[in-house]
Structure formats: structure tokens, C-alpha cells
């Protein structure tokens, strides 16, 4: 191969096109968020482990440092999915659709963690894995299955524009279940305790100060994890879109990246 030919086909990574570079899954902001999430998680775990024993529940109460923050984080993620879905319908911005889908996907993960930790806690404290008298448990399960349907709908539609519009509509309609889950403990006679942090009367938290600090640290960690996962998922969705675009134009993905320089073919 002549030097001229080699120089045109074997380009160094720093000569990659701007598009390929922006799609690279590592960026300083995402990495920083990930590191911050790890640090916060370590702090939260330490504070949860060193928190005093709860008087009646004993060690099982420590599960609440995962259960409660994961529930609040799920609300935040699904709320972000709602806001960005509305934003998409107003502005038709593809980025809003990607963020909405990513937020809801991560929200489903946190809803699953909430359900799972709630069931384990229930087994220790109530003696059963599942209690039909607990309105919040049942409504959370319904919410979880609905959003599984959202994810299934997203995977079923190949046209990006149709997918974005239909999923935005569903994201808006489905969010009505989130306040139902939260207020179910007030609307129905239920085994689950009432809200102790986000109280409808906006009164102060009923939780002891010794538990508020570790819970706050765990919540901060979960929110940082949420931000990191959403950012990574949005980046991944952009890469998927690039693959789809490349496939539709028959241009091989990474065509602009050649073998390392100095490699003779």
C-alpha cells in the first residue's frame, strides 16, 4: 500500500468526525456524575450502616434507607419523563424524546427496586411477602406493569417520529398513576404507614433526626445514580439512532475509523 493510500484510509482516532466523537459513550460530565454518584453511595451506605437501631423493627429498618429513596427517585424519574414528553409534543425535539424514554426506563428500574425492597421489608416486619391490604404495594405493582407496557410499546415501533409521539402521549396519560400511588395510603385503609417526609399538609417530617441524615444521604446518592444512568442511556440511545441511520443509508458504522497507523495491510 502506498503512503498516500495509507494516509487516506488509516486515520488516527483524533481525526474522527465530529459526529463520531460526540457519540463516544464517555464524556467528562458523565464520568464526573458517575464518580459523584459512587462517592455519595459510599457515604449513604456508611451513614445507613452506622445509624442507630430502630426501636421496634431492629435491623430491618435499614432497608428503608434503600426503599424510601428508590421510591422518591422513581417518582422523580417518571416526573422527568412526563415533563420531557410534554416538551416533545410542544417542540418536537428528538432530544426531549430520548430523555423522556431514558428517564422512564430508569424510573422502571427504581420502581422495581422499591417493590423488591418493600416486599423483603414486609416479610421481616409484617411476616408476609405480599399484603393485599396494602394499597401502596398494590398500586406500585400496577404502576410497574403499566410502565413495562410503555417500554414494550417503545420497542414495538420502528419509526422514530411515530414512536416519539405515541410514547409521549402514553407517558403523559400514565403519569396519573404516580399521585395515586403516593396518596393511596391516605385514600384507602391500608397497612402501609402514611407519608412521613412528603406530607400533604406540608408539616415537618415525623421521622427522628437520627434517621433523617442517613436517609437524606441515601436520597442524594440515588438521585446522582439516576442522573448518571439517564445520561448514559441518552448517550446509548443516540448511538442506537446513529446505527439505525447508518443502516438505512447502507454506510458501515465507524466507517470513518480506520485501523491504527503503522499497520500494513
Amino acid at each position, binding site marked *: 500500500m502506498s503512503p498516500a493510500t495509507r494516509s487516506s484510509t488509516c486515520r488516527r482516532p483524533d481525526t474522527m468526525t465530529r459526529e463520531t466523537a460526540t457519540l463516544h459513550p464517555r464524556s467528562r460530565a458523565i464520568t464526573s456524575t458517575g464518580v459523584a454518584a459512587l462517592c455519595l453511595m459510599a457515604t449513604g451506605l456508611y451513614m445507613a450502616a452506622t445509624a442507630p437501631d430502630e426501636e421496634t423493627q431492629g435491623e430491618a429498618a435499614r432497608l428503608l434507607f434503600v426503599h424510601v429513596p428508590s421510591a422518591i427517585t422513581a417518582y422523580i424519574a417518571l416526573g422527568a419523563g412526563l415533563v420531557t414528553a410534554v416538551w416533545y409534543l410542544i417542540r418536537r425535539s428528538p432530544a426531549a424524546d430520548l430523555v423522556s424514554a431514558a428517564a422512564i426506563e430508569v424510573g422502571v428500574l427504581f420502581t422495581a427496586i422499591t417493590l423488591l425492597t418493600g416486599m423483603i421489608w414486609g416479610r421481616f416486619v409484617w411476616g408476609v411477602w405480599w399484603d393485599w391490604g396494602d394499597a401502596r404495594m398494590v398500586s406500585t405493582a*400496577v404502576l410497574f406493569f*403499566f410502565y413495562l407496557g410503555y417500554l414494550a*410499546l417503545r420497542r414495538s415501533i420502528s419509526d422514530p417520529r411515530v414512536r416519539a409521539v405515541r410514547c409521549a402521549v402514553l407517558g403523559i396519560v400514565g403519569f396519573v398513576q404516580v399521585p395515586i400511588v403516593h396518596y393511596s395510603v391516605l385514600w384507602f385503609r391500608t397497612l402501609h404507614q402514611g407519608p412521613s417526609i412528603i406530607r400533604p399538609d406540608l408539616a415537618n417530617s415525623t421521622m427522628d433526626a437520627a434517621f433523617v441524615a442517613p436517609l437524606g444521604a441515601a436520597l442524594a446518592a440515588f438521585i446522582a445514580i439516576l442522573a448518571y444512568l439517564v445520561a448514559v442511556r441518552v448517550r446509548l440511545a443516540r448511538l442506537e439512532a446513529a446505527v439505525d441511520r447508518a443502516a438505512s443509508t447502507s454506510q458501515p458504522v465507524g466507517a470513518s475509523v480506520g485501523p491504527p497507523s503503522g499497520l500494513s495491510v
Partner: protein
Amino acid sequence: MTPSAFWQQVRWVFTKDLRVEVRGGVTLRMATPFAALALLLAPLATGTDTALLRRIGPGMLWLVVILFGMTVTLRSGAREPGPVRDLLTLSGLDPAAGFLGRSLASAVLLFGVTLVLTPLMIVLYAPEGRPGWGWLALLAVAGVMALGLLGSLVATLVTGLRERTALGPLLAIPLAVPVLLATARGTDSAISQQGSLSWLLLLVAMNLALVIVGVLLAGPMDETTR
């Protein structure tokens, strides 16, 4: 578009859908007998304890109406097939009028299913007390209207998808849980001669919310089915 022209369009779509159903007869000849069969078979699964059956009768009725009725609404509430859809679009059909017309037609079909199943449930499960027919009728109307609106909304979202028969119920049934709670508990209260006003109000609120959401989002949803 004037309000009278809008409601004229709603009436056209409503009449068209009902006429198609009368000619096809799928709801009457297939879905309703299938739902009745489910009511008949449920006691074989739960055990034929009379006291238990008396208690679960109203709930079973609405569970069957929702599960089987959803298949009816997802089918009848779906956007029309290609040529009919194109014709309606060219005729200048308002998407919101189309949505309301399809929802009303689905609700009428579901009301028919409920009319057949309610006496059957009373005969088979013999719930205690004398039914308050006024409350039962109001609950049935509000319940089937909510299911019709919900079914049309979801049917539009899954229009044209290969997986729509599995995906439609997965999306619609979790959203129908408040309807199940309100109609089942409300019917229970009506049969035991207690008022069902709070459950009826819940259904009315849900209907209002679904009408607002459906009318506002009918345009964007309609453009994805063209």
C-alpha cells in the same frame, strides 16, 4: 369548525362504528358469550362456596367486563383501516371528533355486554341484598364510558403494530384499575342498598380527565396513524 359541525362529525363516526358492529356482530356473537362463559367458569376455580360467591359476584362481573370488554374496545376503538382512514382525513374529520365518536360507540357496545352479564351474575352468584337499579345503571354508564374512552386512546396508540393484541391490554388494563375499583365497590354498595355516590364521582372525574386528555392529544395521535 362550529360546535354543531363538530358534534355532527362525532355522530357520523359513532353511527358508522355501530353500523359496522351490527353488520359484523363480533361483540354480540363472540365476545359476550365468551365473557358469560368466564363468569360461569370462575366458581369452578375459586370453589363453589356459596358465601364466597355471594361476596365476589359484583367484583367478578366488572373484572370480566373490563378484561373482555377491553378486547372489544381495543378492536372497535382502533383507527379505521387504510382506505377508510384516508377518506375520513380527506373529508376533513376533526381528530377529536373521531376520538369521541369511536369512544361513544365502544361505550355503547360495552353497555350491551354489561346488560347481558349483570342479570347472569345475579342469577349465578346471588349477591346478598336487593339491587338499587338506579345506582347500578348510573355506575354502568359511567364505567363503560370510561372504558370506551380508555380503549380508544390505547387502541390509537397501538394502531398498525404487529403486537397490538398483546400490547393493548397490557397498556389499558393497569389504567383501568380505578374503573374496576369504582364499579366493583360501587355495585357492591348499590346491591347492599348503600349509596354509591363517591364511587360514581370517581368515575365521572375519570371520564372528564380522559375526555380532556383524549381531545387535546387526538391531533398528535392521529398524525401517527396516517
